[in-house]
């Protein structure tokens, strides 16, 4: 059973990691915890659903949903956060909570408040079949697809951040905004790019979760958001590799917690992890200590 829990936990963890990178990148560049990021993830699932119901094949539907949520993420920043860039941090934080509630309710108006199933007909039939089987452990094709997609996206994201001109500008901006501006970096454009990147990743996570659990609902972003945020804190907020590591660690911890302690405790694991990290290692796995940051 343990091995099966690990496989399931790893699947969940990769999805958390995809959401967590969005939190951590935005925090890195504007020091804002974007509470509406969970809703971006939810919109990824619903927009994919809408694209499928218009007759588009799954890959194209996901791609369109990614682009649309990336645009929504950018819009969110431009409309809600940019005007508050010089305001006290609390103002932006409260605005983020407001945007989260707004987007949830918008989704309820568009798609209704009841859970919807993922359109099975859009999935290839073999998805539910086992791909690998070692004695007790099975890995389904869907899990394989989730692994490959999530890992490919994260490798790609790392390449963008470490190798490209805009990615380097993003890191420069996170380290010193004034200096970045003095280099001729268009600060707002790079921040928009960060939102687009994080939102696109979050959208894919939303699709994969709704596919994996065969359900989506407008408030699904809340808990997933909290957990991914906990993963980002666990990895060290602001660190992209940290968020990836934190996501996987949290997914596994949560699944094991549910399996070995009791399943109602599943969601409590994320909170427990977050509290323990804040008490014992506030900088997370890979974060810089606060002292160094000052």
């Amino acid at each position, binding site marked *: 059973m343990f091995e099966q829990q690990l496989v399931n936990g790893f699947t969940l963890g990769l999805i958390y990691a995809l959401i967590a990178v969005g939190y951590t990148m935005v925090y890195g560049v504007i020091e804002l915890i974007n509470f509406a990021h969970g809703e971006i993830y939810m919109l990824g699932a619903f927009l994919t659903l809408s694209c499928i119901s218009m007759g588009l094949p799954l890959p194209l539907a996901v791609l369109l949903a990614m682009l649309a949520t990336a645009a929504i993420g950018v819009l969110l920043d431009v409309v809600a956060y940019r005007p508050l860039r010089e305001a006290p941090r609390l103002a932006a934080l409260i605005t983020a909570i407001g945007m989260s509630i707004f987007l949830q309710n918008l989704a309820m108006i568009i798609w209704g408040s009841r859970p919807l199933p993922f359109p099975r007909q859009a999935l290839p039939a073999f998805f539910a079949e086992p791909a690998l089987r070692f004695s007790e452990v099975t890995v389904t094709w869907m899990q394989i697809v989730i692994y490959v997609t999530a890992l490919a996206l994260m490798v790609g994201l790392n390449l963008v951040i470490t190798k490209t001109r805009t990615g380097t500008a993003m890191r420069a901006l996170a380290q010193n905004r004034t*200096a970045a501006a003095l280099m001729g970096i268009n600060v707002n454009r790079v921040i928009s790019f960060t939102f687009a990147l994080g939102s696109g990743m979050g959208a894919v996570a939303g699709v994969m979760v709704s596919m994996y659990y065969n359900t989506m609902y407008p408030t699904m972003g809340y808990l997933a958001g909290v957990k991914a945020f906990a993963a980002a804190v666990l990895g060290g907020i602001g660190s992209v590799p940290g968020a990836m590591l934190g996501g996987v660690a949290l997914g596994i911890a949560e699944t094991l917690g549910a399996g070995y302690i009791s399943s109602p405790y599943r969601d409590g694991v994320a909170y427990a992890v977050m509290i323990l990290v804040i008490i014992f290692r506030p900088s997370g796995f890979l974060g810089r200590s606060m002292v160094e940051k000052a």
Partner: protein
Amino acid sequence: MLEVRDIHTFYGNIQALRGLSLRIEAGEIVTLIGANGAGKTTTLMSISGVTPPKQGSITFLGQEVSRLSTERIVSLGITQVPEGRMIFPRLTVKENLLMGGYLRRDKAGVRADEERVYELFPVLRERRAQMGGTLSGGEQQMLAIGRALLARPKLLLLDEPSLGLAPLVVENIFEIIQQINADGVTVLLVEQNAQMALQIAHRGYVLETGRLTLEGPAKDLLNDPKVRSAYLGLD
């Protein structure tokens, strides 16, 4: 080349510049000296568009720039080496330099200028894969200057490049500033080290609480009794 006319710059309600005017001709080294809090950094930040003046005008090569964004100003050819260096601590030396050339599209030119910076500061070549934050103070200052050169500026603004450096390193940095100027870059040098600054500058301005109080050829200022007692600690 640069003409600043009667600028007033504020931080909220605090007025830092009160009608400052100065002029820089192409090819010059001009120095701006003044005590702590006089408004030297604010002057450079106003020119760079980071704290745009509320009133007054700044023209560069005949174009009004006081309402332009910082990146537009950089793209026109004004680059600043800010006070405290502000290098990117967790980017490598090479990445720091490349950020200096962020707006440039000529890859070959950027490569050549990177080489040129390594010739000016050989230590940066050795350290190019190292994180900027691990460099010594003097090396960071060299990196900050090198990074600015990657933008191929027409006008280079330097804010207290001697700050916190040992005398020998300061001398080295000042020699390089002269060399950069000899290569055709106009320089506006802000300094507390008035002695050294006036020795390499062609002209100088003295700033006191947001206003200019003296200006003239650097040699005259070096011999000015007021400057000698207030900024050179002499007489």
